[in-house]
């Protein structure tokens, strides 16, 4: 591993060259493969759920099996896919390249955090001997009573949280210390700003979930009554702890995807990003405000109306920096010279679907309508629009955008567009339908439902089949590209950020010479406005 040996980082072979690598790019790739695996597995569970919901009665599985499936689906998608995928996967690969650095600040810690993550999911797999049925939210007292292996699972989540803290710390230090000469904070690509904000949330919030799961384990194993009213505990306390972590973590899920979109939109419009500073600072504002709104998940848990009012008020404030980002992206398109390669299609899809996710937020933020819609399919639709329509589409944009850089090969553009079309169609058919179910009162986590909800459920299931076909086509395209794609030039999209100023795939230490940065990475456009 000598600097500038001219060979791509992928040239070394054998499993040891991966398992013990200190190269941030390889660690990033390992994270990507692992998390994509869990995305597909979580998707299988989603399909099983939709299959069961084809009929109002539990026809194919028992209620219990359904409950296990939605728990596995949710928990995997959240803890094993969406939280780590962009930060630890694409983030690891890109942060040093974006900064003009040779690696992250602590390469060994980086490798350690990957293996802690793997240990975490192995523990979780081990806990499946007694499948959990708590939902990914683990509310007490149910989670303290159910027979499933919640204690083992807590340990797994604890380890995964630890890995996430280590990665976050590593990124913060890297961004502070390893920027190439000339790269001031205000010359950083917006992806770095979003990763910076994300890392802060991870470091500050994740310890809380660690503690929460320790308390839950103590309750189950030692019989301590933190949450048990019979012992003077408070069952709702768990929800406060849980959401104090899990609400900010919603922004760990979405901010990195916003970062990707902020990279892709300017490149494919050949325009500088509109309102750079507003986008950069709004990431920090979201990170900060995200800590003040956790109890908006708990408006029906018996909190005082005053507390509800305060949390509802704060919730609406997060909407503002988010709206600012959306307006800026759209303004970037104005008078551009736009092309629609797959990364751009997914970035535009992100904006389109995220707007729907975002505009259904006020229904849940306003108290009167929250009480009506909370814990119904309206919420299921809303969070799939933000998490899958937002984050996952941003992730797909990033995968298509950086695929040439990561693998050194180009994707088949036609296949990419065809799979995009299926995904776009399938997604909307599946999840838009759920808004109607929710408004009409169908509660979430229902294995069986009243016949009056039947037709929407059938439509949603048909949509999920289309969606699945699209995702399979996309995966197939990745595999084909990897095996037989045409070799990629260093800068296929003619972008200006630093990762494109090195060959594809980059060599082990990224750059022959550390670049000198003289401008921000969005200098498109020749005519002065």
């Amino acid at each position, binding site marked *: 591993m000598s600097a500038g040996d001219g060979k791509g980082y992928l040239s070394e072979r054998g499993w040891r060259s991966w398992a013990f690598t200190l190269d941030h790019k390889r660690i990033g790739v390992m994270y990507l493969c692992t998390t994509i695996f869990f995305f597909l597995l979580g998707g299988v569970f989603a399909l099983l759920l939709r299959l069961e919901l084809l009929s109002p009665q539990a026809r194919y599985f028992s*209620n219990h099996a359904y*409950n296990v499936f939605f728990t596995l689906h949710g928990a995997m998608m959240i803890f094993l896919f969406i939280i780590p995928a962009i930060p630890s996967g694409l983030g690891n690969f890109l942060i040093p390249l974006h900064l003009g650095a040779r690696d992250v600040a602590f390469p060994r810690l980086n490798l350690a955090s990957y293996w802690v993550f793997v240990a975490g999911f192995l523990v979780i797999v081990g806990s499946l001997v007694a499948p959990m049925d708590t939902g990914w939210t683990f*509310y007490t*007292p149910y989670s303290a*009573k159910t027979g499933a292996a919640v204690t083992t699972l807590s340990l797994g989540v604890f380890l995964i949280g630890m890995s996430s803290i280590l990665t976050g710390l590593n990124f913060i230090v890297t961004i502070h210390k390893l920027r190439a000469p000339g790269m001031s904070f205000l010359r950083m690509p917006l992806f770095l700003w979003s990763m910076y904000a994300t890392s802060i949330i991870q470091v500050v919030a994740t310890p809380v979930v660690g503690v929460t799961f320790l308390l839950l384990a103590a309750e189950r194993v030692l019989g301590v009554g933190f949450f048990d*009213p*019979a012992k003077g505990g408070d*069952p*709702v306390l768990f929800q406060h702890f849980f959401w104090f972590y899990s609400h900010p973590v919603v922004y760990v899920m979405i901010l990195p995807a916003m970062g990707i979109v902020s990279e892709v939109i300017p490149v494919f*419009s*050949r325009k*500088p990003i*509109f*309102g750079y500073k*507003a986008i950069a600072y709004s990431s920090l504002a979201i990170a900060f405000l995200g800590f003040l709104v956790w109890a908006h998940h708990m408006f*029906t848990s*018996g909190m005082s*109306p005053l507390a509800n009012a305060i949390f*509802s008020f704060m919730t*609406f404030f997060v909407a*503002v920096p988010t709206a*600012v980002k959306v*307006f*800026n992206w759209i*303004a970037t*398109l*104005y*008078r551009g*010279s*736009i*092309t*629609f390669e797959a990364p751009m299609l997914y970035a*535009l899809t992100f*904006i*389109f679907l995220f*707007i*729907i996710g975002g505009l259904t937020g*006020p229904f849940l*933020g*306003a108290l*009167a*309508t*929250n*009480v*009506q819609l*909370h*814990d119904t399919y309206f919420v299921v639709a809303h969070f799939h629009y933000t998490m899958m329509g937002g984050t996952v589409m941003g992730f797909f944009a990033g995968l298509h955008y950086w695929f040439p850089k990561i693998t050194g090969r180009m994707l088949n553009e036609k296949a990419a567009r065809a799979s995009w079309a299926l995904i776009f169609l399938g997604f909307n058919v599946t999840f838009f339908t759920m808004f109607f179910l929710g*408004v*009409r*009162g169908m*509660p*979430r986590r229902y*294995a*069986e439902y*009243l016949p009056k909800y039947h037709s929407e459920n059938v439509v949603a299931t048909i949509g999920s089949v289309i969606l699945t076909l699209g995702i399979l086509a996309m995966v197939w395209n990745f595999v084909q590209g990897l095996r037989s794609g045409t070799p990629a030039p260093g800068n296929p999209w003619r972008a200006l950020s630093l990762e494109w100023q090195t060959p594809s795939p980059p060599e082990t230490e990224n750059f022959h010479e550390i670049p000198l940065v003289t401008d921000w990475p969005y*200098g498109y*456009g*020749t*005519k002065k*406005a």
Partner: protein
Amino acid sequence: MNSIQSFGAASGEAGKVDAVFLLIAVICGFFFLLTQGLLVYFAVRYRRRAAGRDNETPRITGNHLLEIVWILVPTIVVMAIFYYGWKVYSDMRIPRPGAAEVHVTGKQWMWEIRYPGGRTAINEIRVQRGKPVKFLLSSSDVIHGFYLPEFRVKMDAIPGRITSLWLSPDRAGTFAIHCTVYCGDGHSNMNGSLIVMEPAEYAAWERGAAEAGRADEPLPKRGERLVGASGCLNCHAVSGKEKIGPNFSGLFGSKVPLEGGTTVSADEEYLRESIVDPGAKVVKGYPNVMPTYKTSMKAEEVRAVVEYLKTLR
């Protein structure tokens, strides 16, 4: 539950929630059209027409006035939405004076109702049209969510605590009650109904119900009615696919394997005991989750249920 009504608002307060919903829908609909419209319009209008001209775009990096506008406008709009959401909500939290109080206890997996006079019921709440009623909610095991979609209200039922909810039904009819906080295997079967009766009808029911059933009704018939009304069928099936508990059909007279390896023959005494003290003999392979009916069923009602079960050979 075949007579569940359509989804129109069933109380004046629910109508107010619908108004807030509509208000938000109009505002968000406007911004939806605006943003998606611009997105699609720009994407189409500014697509690259000729190759090679790709860098001839204006170098626009921002516009302070525009950015201030789109920080201020959303701020004002969301504050307005917050205000209406909060106003209607806080009005709704204050019960109208003179509300009758009904206790509701969530249990895995049924709603146990206790009326002021001490009468109890399972999964079925009867109230009068036009008269406000306040529900005092609690739970005997895990958290449940008490949800009445047509009334646009919901509140969690939490062990060790009493929470409350009130409504004032405007329409007679039968309305769904759902459990919205995940509570285990029977979560999606934890449904009940709110039966809103005309005042005269309600008074008659109150009188009639005081006479402990109908004297001329044959016991098995009465048992069948009780099994339906007491939440038994949430967990037990009379025919067809097994639910959470053992099937009722063919139960009487069979040999039942118990946890611990013994068996017992399902005679009348066994059936009676299983209703009032379900934990005493737990059937092999089934979770010990059934609540006792000791307080909610009178001895003769239990007898009627047993007689009914005997008919299900």
